[in-house]
């Protein structure tokens, strides 16, 4: 199945539930177990949260565009936005380093990228035509 038509979501934390629901709809009927689907929804939630809070976009004049694709035995969810270029992978090592610290010494917040990237089978990012393009893949049997 080629990439689906994109669906636009407001750049608002109130849209997170609808984005997670979009993932559930995309996965409906596919043999993806509950745990994997949860992790994919969590990954989308975290990437979208990062866009909403830190991309510099505002709700009035910008959107987050989501699309899905089924390729062989993978479900791919794509998020596109026109915020400041940001490759989440660049933040991964910093978040991983936080994991080895005792809770008392941890920075409050900042584990979302770690959960997103490690929770899916493949994470890809590119900056193309003025858009951040985040792709999250999960495999199924």
């Amino acid at each position, binding site marked *: 199945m080629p990439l689906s038509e994109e669906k636009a979501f407001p750049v608002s*934390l109130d849209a997170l*539930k609808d984005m*997670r629901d979009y993932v559930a709809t995309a996965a409906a009927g596919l043999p993806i177990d509950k745990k994997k689907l949860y992790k994919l929804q969590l990954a989308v*939630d*975290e990437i979208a949260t990062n866009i909403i809070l830190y991309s510099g976009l505002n709700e009035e004049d910008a959107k987050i565009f989501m699309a899905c694709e089924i390729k062989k035995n993978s479900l791919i969810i794509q998020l596109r936005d026109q915020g400041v270029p940001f490759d989440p992978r660049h933040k991964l090592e910093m978040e991983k380093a936080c994991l080895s610290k005792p*809770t008392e010494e941890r920075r*409050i917040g*900042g*584990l979302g990228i770690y*959960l997103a990237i490690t929770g899916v089978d493949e994470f890809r990012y590119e900056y193309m035509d003025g858009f951040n393009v985040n792709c999250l893949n999960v495999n199924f049997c």
Partner: protein
Amino acid sequence: MSFESSLDMTSNGVARITLSGKLDSSTYREFEGLIGQAIANKAKRVALLLGGLSFMASAGLRVLVFAKQKLGSSVDIYVIEAQEQVVDTITMTGLEHSVTMLDSYDAAVVEKF
């Protein structure tokens, strides 16, 4: 189901915080507010009753770290009845070492000083 939260204090100083629904960046302030109330009430322990919590993003972890740091090491935090995926999220980030996980609320454990 949307997010719902509540706090009640036992007579012996345990702050029982019940969360249900989905905890994400749009809802975590509510949870953080209840931790603030528990601190203001000088809670001796905090019991998080999570049986009805079906989703927790990193915003929830943020509040756990906040709670641990603000309450201090003398105030134990119990995570009770958490669903499998929520437990996974906590353990993936190493926070299970900072809390005590229980399958159900046991007053003989949580309220024993």
